[in-house]
C-alpha cells in the first residue's frame, strides 16, 4: 500500500531528473514523517488537516436549482416533523400516528374547524401583506400589533359611542375611516421621525405597541365598569356589526368577505410592488438610500407614504377583528400576529403569493397543535398546550433553516485535505 502510493507519486513528476527527484522525495517525506506521522508510519500523500482549520465550514452554493431547493426543503422540514413527533411521543407515550391524525384534525376535522383556520389565515396573511411594503423598503416595522390594536380600538369607540346615535351602516363607515386613519397614523409617526432624524424604527414601532396596548386596556377597563370582563359591544342592537352572510352551514359568512378581500389584497400587493412607480421607488430605497437620493427619489416622502399604507391596512385588520369577528375588544385582540407576520414576510422572500402558502402552513400547525392538546391531553398529560406549541415552533425553525441550506452548504474539512501530488524540487 505504502509502496504503491510512492509509485503513483513518482509517476506524476516526470519532468525532473531522477536523482534530484529521489532526494527531494525522501527529504520531503522524512520531514512529513518526523513532523506529523508519529504513531502510524504510513507516509500518506495527504498532509494532515490543520488543527486550527475549522472542521466544518460554510460555503455558498453556486447554482441553486429547484432540485436543491426541494431536497433541502424536504429534508429540513421532514427531519423537524420527525423530531417533533418523536419528541411528543417521548414525553407522552401516545401513538405517533394518532398524534399526526390529531394535528390534521385541527384544520380538516370539520367545516367549523376549517373555517376557523381560514379566518386565522386571512388575518395573518393580511397583516403580513400590510408589513410587506415596509420590509421591502428595509423599514423594520415591528409595530403591526400596535397598528392593529389602534384600528380595533377606534372601531370599538365608534361602536360604543355612535352605536345608538345613527344607523348601523353609518357606524360601520365611520369605523372603517377611523380604523384606517388611526392605523396609518400609528405607523406614520415613526416614519416621520425616521425620515427626518433617522431614528431607529424598530425601537420606535415597538414602543408604540406598548402604548397601544395600554390605551386599549384603559378603555376596556372603563367600559367594563364593575363587571369582570367587557363583554360584547352592542350585543342587543348589533349596531356597527358587519352583517353576516347566510350561506348555509358549509361556509362561514363572517369569513367570506375578508377572505375575498385578502385575496384581492394579495394580487394588488404583487402588482403594486412589481409594476408601479411607487413599488419601484420602494425597492430602490430598500436597496440603497444613496442611490435613491442620487436618482432624485424623495426618500422621506416615500418612507412616510409607504408606512401610512402599511399602517392603514393593519388598522383595517383591527376593524375586521372588532366589527366582523369578535364584537369586543381586549389587549390580546391582535393575537400576536404582528410578530408572526414578520416571520411570514421573511420566509416567503417578500413574494405575496408565497405568503399564502406560509401563512396556511403556520396556521395549520398551530391549529393542529391546539387540537392535539385539546383532544389528547386527558389521556396523555404530556400533550399539553405548551409541549404541542413547542413542537410547532421546532418545525417553524426548521423551515427557516431550509432557506439557509438552500443558499449555503456545509463543507467538511476532510474534503479539504491538501493533497501533495508533486514532490518538492
Amino acid at each position, binding site marked *: 500500500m505504502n509502496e504503491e502510493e510512492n509509485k503513483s507519486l513518482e509517476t506524476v513528476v516526470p519532468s525532473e531528473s531522477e536523482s534530484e527527484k529521489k532526494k527531494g522525495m525522501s527529504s520531503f517525506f522524512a520531514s512529513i514523517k518526523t513532523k506529523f506521522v508519529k504513531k502510524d508510519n504510513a507516509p500518506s500523500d495527504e498532509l494532515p488537516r490543520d488543527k486550527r482549520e475549522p472542521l466544518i465550514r460554510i460555503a455558498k452554493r453556486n447554482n441553486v436549482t429547484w432540485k436543491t431547493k426541494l431536497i433541502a426543503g424536504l429534508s429540513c422540514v421532514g427531519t423537524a416533523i420527525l423530531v417533533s413527533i418523536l419528541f411528543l411521543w417521548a414525553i407522552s407515550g401516545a401513538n405517533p400516528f394518532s398524534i399526526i391524525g390529531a394535528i390534521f384534525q385541527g384544520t380538516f376535522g370539520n367545516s367549523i374547524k376549517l373555517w376557523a383556520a381560514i379566518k386565522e389565515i386571512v388575518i395573518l396573511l393580511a397583516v403580513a401583506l400590510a408589513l410587506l411594503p415596509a420590509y421591502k423598503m428595509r423599514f423594520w416595522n415591528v409595530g403591526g400589533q400596535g397598528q392593529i390594536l389602534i384600528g380595533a380600538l377606534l372601531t370599538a369607540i365608534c361602536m360604543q359611542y355612535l352605536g345608538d346615535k345613527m344607523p348601523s351602516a353609518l357606524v360601520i363607515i365611520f369605523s372603517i375611516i377611523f380604523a384606517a386613519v388611526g392605523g396609518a397614523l400609528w405607523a406614520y409617526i415613526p416614519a416621520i421621525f425616521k425620515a427626518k432624524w433617522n431614528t431607529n424604527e424598530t425601537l420606535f414601532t415597538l414602543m408604540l405597541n406598548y402604548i397601544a396596548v395600554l390605551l386599549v386596556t384603559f378603555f376596556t377597563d372603563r367600559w367594563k365598569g364593575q363587571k369582570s370582563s367587557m363583554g360584547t359591544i352592542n350585543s342587543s342592537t348589533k349596531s356597527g356589526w358587519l352583517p353576516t352572510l347566510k350561506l348555509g352551514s358549509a361556509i362561514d359568512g363572517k369569513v367570506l368577505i375578508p377572505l375575498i378581500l385578502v385575496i384581492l389584497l394579495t394580487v394588488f400587493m404583487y402588482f403594486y410592488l412589481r409594476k408601479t412607480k411607487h413599488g419601484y421607488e420602494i425597492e430602490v430605497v430598500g436597496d440603497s438610500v444613496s442611490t435613491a437620493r442620487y436618482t432624485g427619489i424623495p426618500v422621506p416622502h416615500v418612507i412616510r407614504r409607504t408606512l401610512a399604507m402599511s399602517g392603514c391596512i393593519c388598522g383595517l385588520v383591527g376593524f375586521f377583528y372588532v366589527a366582523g369577528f369578535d364584537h369586543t375588544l381586549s389587549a390580546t385582540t391582535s393575537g400576536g400576529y404582528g410578530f408572526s407576520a414578520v416571520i411570514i414576510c421573511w420566509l416567503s422572500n417578500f413574494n405575496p403569493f408565497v405568503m399564502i402558502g406560509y401563512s396556511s402552513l403556520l396556521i395549520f400547525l398551530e391549529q393542529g397543535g391546539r387540537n392535539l392538546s385539546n383532544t389528547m391531553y386527558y389521556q396523555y398529560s404530556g400533550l399539553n398546550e405548551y409541549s404541542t406549541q413547542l413542537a410547532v415552533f421546532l418545525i417553524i425553525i426548521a423551515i427557516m433553516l431550509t432557506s439557509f441550506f438552500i443558499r449555503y452548504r456545509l463543507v467538511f474539512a476532510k474534503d479539504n485535505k491538501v493533497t501533495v501530488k508533486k514532490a*518538492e524540487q
Partner: protein
Amino acid sequence: MGNRIRLHHISKRFGEVLANNDVNLTILPGEILSLLGENGSGKTTLMNMLSGIYFPDAGRITINHEIVRISSPADAFAHGIGMVHQHFKLVDTFTAAENIILGLREGFFINKKSVNEKITAIAARYGFHIDPNKKVYDMSVSEKQTVEIVKLLYRGVDTLILDEPTAVLTPQEIDHLFNVLRAMRKDGKTIVIITHKLNEVLSLSDRVAVLRKGELVNLFDTKDATEELLTDAMVGEHVVLHIDRAEPSKRKQRIIVSHLTTYNEEHVKTLDDVSFDCYTGEMVGIAGIGGSGQKALLEAISGLQKCEPGSSIMFSNGDLMEELVGKSPKEIKDLGVRLAFVPEDRLGMGLVGNFGMMGNMLLRSYENGKGPILHTKEPTQTAKEVKEGLSVLTPSIDTPVRTLSGGNVQKVLLGREIATSPRLLLTAYATRGLDINTSYLIYNILNEQKKNEAAILYVGEDLDVLLALTDRIVVLCDGKVSGIVDSRTTDKKTVGQLMAKFEKQEEQAHE
C-alpha cells in the same frame, strides 16, 4: 539573512471563482519582489494566504524547505511574515504606539517609554517619520501607512508584504516610501509589493511576478522587463494603449463654480471657497489626495450636498443660466439640466445591485409616462443598446448587476449616464478597479462625449492618466483649490506639489 519562502501549487477557490490556480512562487531573501496583475488577478488572495488571512484549498508553503502551516496572522508573525493591507487595520482612537503594540503579549502593564524608544529606533534606522503619541484619527494616509509598517517591524517581521501601498499617496510620498523600502532591503529585509502600476515596478523591484486570472504567468528580472512586456503579460495579449485626446472646442462656459463651500455631517469643512469653470467640449480633471473634497464637489453640483450661503454653481442651459445651489436632484432634472453623474460608489450609489440592467436604466426614467404603472419599453431598449454598444458581459438584461464583474458594472453605469446625452458629465474614479482594456474603453467613451460638446469633470487618482486625458487640472488640497494647471504643459511633479501644498505650509507654520 531572511528566509526563503516558497509557495507550492497553491490554489484557492471562492464559490465559482478560482482566485488562485496552482501558483508556484519563490520569494528570495533580501529582495524586493513585485506582484503585478490587474484587479481580480489574485495577487492579494495569494498574499493573504501567506499572511494567514486565508488558508489554501490546495498546495503548501515552505520556509527554508520546511513545511509550515499559516492559518492565522499570528502564525505568519511567528515565521517573520507580515502584511500591510490596502485598507489599514488601525484603531482610530489609539495613538501610533498603542496601535503598534496592540495584540502583543508583553506582560500586563505597558511600558510606554520603552515602547516609544523602540519605535523611534526603528524609525531612525529606516528613515520613517513617526510620532508615537499621535492619534490615528489625526494622521494623514501616509502616516497611517508608516504606523502599519512599523507595527510589523516592531514584531520582528523580516518579510513585509505591502498591498497597493502607493494607491493613496502623492508622488513625493511615494518617493519617500520607496527610499524607506530600499533601506529595508539593504538591511536584509524581504519585501513583496502588490501593485498594478508599471513604473513603480520598474523603478523599485528586483524581480516581477505577473499574475493573470489567478495564475502565475511570468516571472521577470526587473532589468530584463519593459513596460510593454509587462503589460502584455498582464493582459495576455498585445495591447496598444493610447489616449486620443480630443481638442476642446472651448466655445462657451458650461459651468461656473464660484466660492463653493460645504460642510459634512460632522460639521467639518469639506470644500472651502472653491472656484473654477468648465467649457463645452472640455475635460477638467480634479486631482488631489483621496478625501480632499472631490466627493463633496461632485455631490454639490448634482444637488446632493448642501452648500453654504455665498456658494454659486451656474449652469448654462441653452441661453439661460441656471443656479444649481439649493436645488434637489429632482429640481435640477426638472429644470431640463442634462447632468450625468458617475459616482465613486457604483453599486451603493449609482446602481441598484438587485436590479438587472433594465431596472437600472429605469432609475433615470421611471417617472416617464402617464399613470402609476411603470413603463419599461424605453428602458428595455436602452439596456439592449448599452449591452450591445459597450459589450457588457451579462447573461441577460434582467440579471442582477451585483453579480457582474467590476468592469461590466461600470459599463452599465456609464452607459446609462451617457444615454441621456448629458451636457455636463461628472465622473469619480471612473476606472478604479478596472482592467486595462476596459479603462481605455472608458477613456475613449469620455473623449467621444467631449466631441459631443459635453463638459466633463473627471475626478481621478492616477496622475499619468489625468495628464494624458484631461485638458486642465484643478488640484484640490484639503478642500481648497491649490492650483489650476494646463494638462498639456504641466508635469507630475508640479501637480504632486500642489496636492500637498497646504500641508507643507502648515508644517512650516508649526516649525
